């Protein structure tokens, strides 16, 4: 494993998060901003639904031929003067990146926003080896100052408010006038721009991730709004791209199709500000750009997901729509999930990458409401895959004893329909009486932990089976 995971204490993490009033207040921005903006952008493109199907087909085709597309891509990178390195796991990816930086005599390394470098724990490895990594995306910069991990895959500092960011800037930017006015958000942005501009110009190596790798041309593509990824890759002598193997797409046309889905699903933009296609090092005729171009292609468990029940997860383009629409994420934020990838996509991907023993709790963090799948631009059946993980967790006896007893208890009644009907009818009546018509319980004996964060709905009518029977008899036998 690469980065220390706290996935095993997911339940405790979530409880702590829900009790953190500042955090839950800050998280309201996720609900308020992302959902509406995406809905508007989607509404404005009548072809959006058809494009989802096409995006899914492009990725399915690529994954089914992934070995061949990787070979074609690597050949084109070499042809354009770049180098491709293959990394089986996180340790190998870190070692390759470090060696390239050491050969370049690097002291400081600027970084564009990259979840893959988070996944392999690159910053800690660099720091331990005397190289200073500098995150340049504003959100990543803020959390680096705080020594935190991103809490969201496209808005890493979404768990923080302006006051917290201002405090961090005052704590770290001690070379600036302590009496400066940072009341406005633009003042914070301007300060970060100034501080980081010097870092961009001084960096020896720039590292970015990639949203896409194009087999046709040997091109890596980053999609950003700030321009930090571009300054990261055009100013230093060396540009390193670290990307996982499922980023491959066949052609420039295929990327263009998926780009229509990406920005809309992520931020509700039609296009992000900067979509940048990079191919090899600078040419002889270029006035700027890196002299060396390296791509580190990371597997880290992904090749084993192919051909199995989790292959569809490899279609993910990291837009974050699933977490933006997830009622669980809204309540607990990203850190509670305990590893790099939060929300529904993380609940599926994390057990695949670090093991179900380690991350078996995450697939339980879902009500199966289905919103994630309904907004996923790549139509990934997220709830279904979480169900697969739950089955595996149960098969491997990883659930807590109480949950297993509970399921056994339920199964006993479910296998005896008469007994089931009798018991549920009695329970309905009992609960309805107890709720005294309020429709909900704000606390229940023995369920205190559960009702602390939400109400328990009280039954107000009949059981489903009774209602169904009644309906069938009214319709002359048909339900």
């Amino acid at each position: 494993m690469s980065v220390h995971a706290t996935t095993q204490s997911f339940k405790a993490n979530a409880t702590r998060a829900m009790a953190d009033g500042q955090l839950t207040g800050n998280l309201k921005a996720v609900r308020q901003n992302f959902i509406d903006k995406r809905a508007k952008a989607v509404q404005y493109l009548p072809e959006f639904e058809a494009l989802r199907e096409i995006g899914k087909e492009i990725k399915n085709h690529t994954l089914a031929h992934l070995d061949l597309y990787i070979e074609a891509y690597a050949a084109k990178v070499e042809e354009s003067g770049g180098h491709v390195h293959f990394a089986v796991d996180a340790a190998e990816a870190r070692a390759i990146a470090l060696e390239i930086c050491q050969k370049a005599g690097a002291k400081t390394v600027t970084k564009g926003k990259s979840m893959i470098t988070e996944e392999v724990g690159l910053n800690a490895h660099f720091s331990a080896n005397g190289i200073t990594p500098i995150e340049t995306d504003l959100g990543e910069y803020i959390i680096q100052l705080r020594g935190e991990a991103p809490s969201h895959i496209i808005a890493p500092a979404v768990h923080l408010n302006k006051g917290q960011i201002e405090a961090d800037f005052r704590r770290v930017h001690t070379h600036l006038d302590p009496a400066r006015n940072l009341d406005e958000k633009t003042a914070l942005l301007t300060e970060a721009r100034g501080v980081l501009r010097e870092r961009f110009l001084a960096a020896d190596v720039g590292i970015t991730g990639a949203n896409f790798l194009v087999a046709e041309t040997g091109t890596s593509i980053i999609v950003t709004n700030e321009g930090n990824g571009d300054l990261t890759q055009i100013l230093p002598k060396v540009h390193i791209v670290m990307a996982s193997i499922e980023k491959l797409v066949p052609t420039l046309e295929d990327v263009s199709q998926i780009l229509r889905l990406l920005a809309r699903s992520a931020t509700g933009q039609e296009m992000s500000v900067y979509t940048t296609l990079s191919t090899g090092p600078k040419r002889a005729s270029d006035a700027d750009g890196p002299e060396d171009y390296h791509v580190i292609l990371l597997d880290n468990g992904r090749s084993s997901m192919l051909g199995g029940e989790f292959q569809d997860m490899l279609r993910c383009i990291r837009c974050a729509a699933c977490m933006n629409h997830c009622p669980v994420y809204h309540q607990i934020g990203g850190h509670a999930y305990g590893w790099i990838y939060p929300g529904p996509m993380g609940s599926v991907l994390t057990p695949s990458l670090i093991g179900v023993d380690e991350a078996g709790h995450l697939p339980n963090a879902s009500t199966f409401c289905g919103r994630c799948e309904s907004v996923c631009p790549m139509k990934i059946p997220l709830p279904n895959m979480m169900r697969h993980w739950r089955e595996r967790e149960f098969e491997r006896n990883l659930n807590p004893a109480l949950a297993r007893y509970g399921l056994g208890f339920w199964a006993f009644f479910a296998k005896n329909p008469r007994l089931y009907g009798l018991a549920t009818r009695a329970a309905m009546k009992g609960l309805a009486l107890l709720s005294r018509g309020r429709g909900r319980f704000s606390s229940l004996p023995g369920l205190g932990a559960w009702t602390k964060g939400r109400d328990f709905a009280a039954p107000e009518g009949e059981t489903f089976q009774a209602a169904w029977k009644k309906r069938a008899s009214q319709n002359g036998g048909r339900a």
Partner: protein
Amino acid sequence: MTSSRATILASIRRSLGVSGDERMRIAAVEERIERAPKGLIPARGQRDAAGKLALFIEKAEGVQASVISLADASAVPEAVATYLRENNLPAAIRMGEDTRLKTLPWDKTTLAVSHGRSLGLDLAAISHAEAGVAETGTLVLFSGAENPTTLNFLPDHHLVVLNAADITGDLESVWPRLRKMYGKGGMPRTVNCITGPSRSGDIEQTILLGAHGPRSLHILIIEG
């Protein structure tokens, strides 16, 4: 020792249940790359030249770029001088070696014109776009001595000249033009698709302009 490349490819093939030698699979990949099917192109950008121009302007302004239309390229230097004056900027502009820009009548203005990449000291630079995409108001620029990439990102104000004739309906239509210039599978070092000025939403999800790239993007469209 097996290389990591061999290990990863073998693992992919084992999972997919293939050897990598299947002629059908190889043919499918070669055909896809060669033919590069366009997919589904939204109706929005599929208009006549005047319609594309109007849509491009609407979309670019919608993402906070400013746009000015000029009848002829010879009007560019004066328009640049006016822009710099109105924004209280020094009368200086940096550009690459693009003859479409260099040969314009800059001597009719009092602007100090310098050439080459940006080292981070220029407040304003001008580039020539290779294409514009009407569907999203996107500029497409190719790296090279003609239009160095640093000019697109380091100055506070980025001015970009775009020929109206180079406005396409969609991004897909840019790629055949690029292949004509660089050959099939060939690319310049950097292709920048730029849609509005730099911005960030990382502080409480409020969109603020001018994060790390240009604070302003000014597009000069040559209609003639």
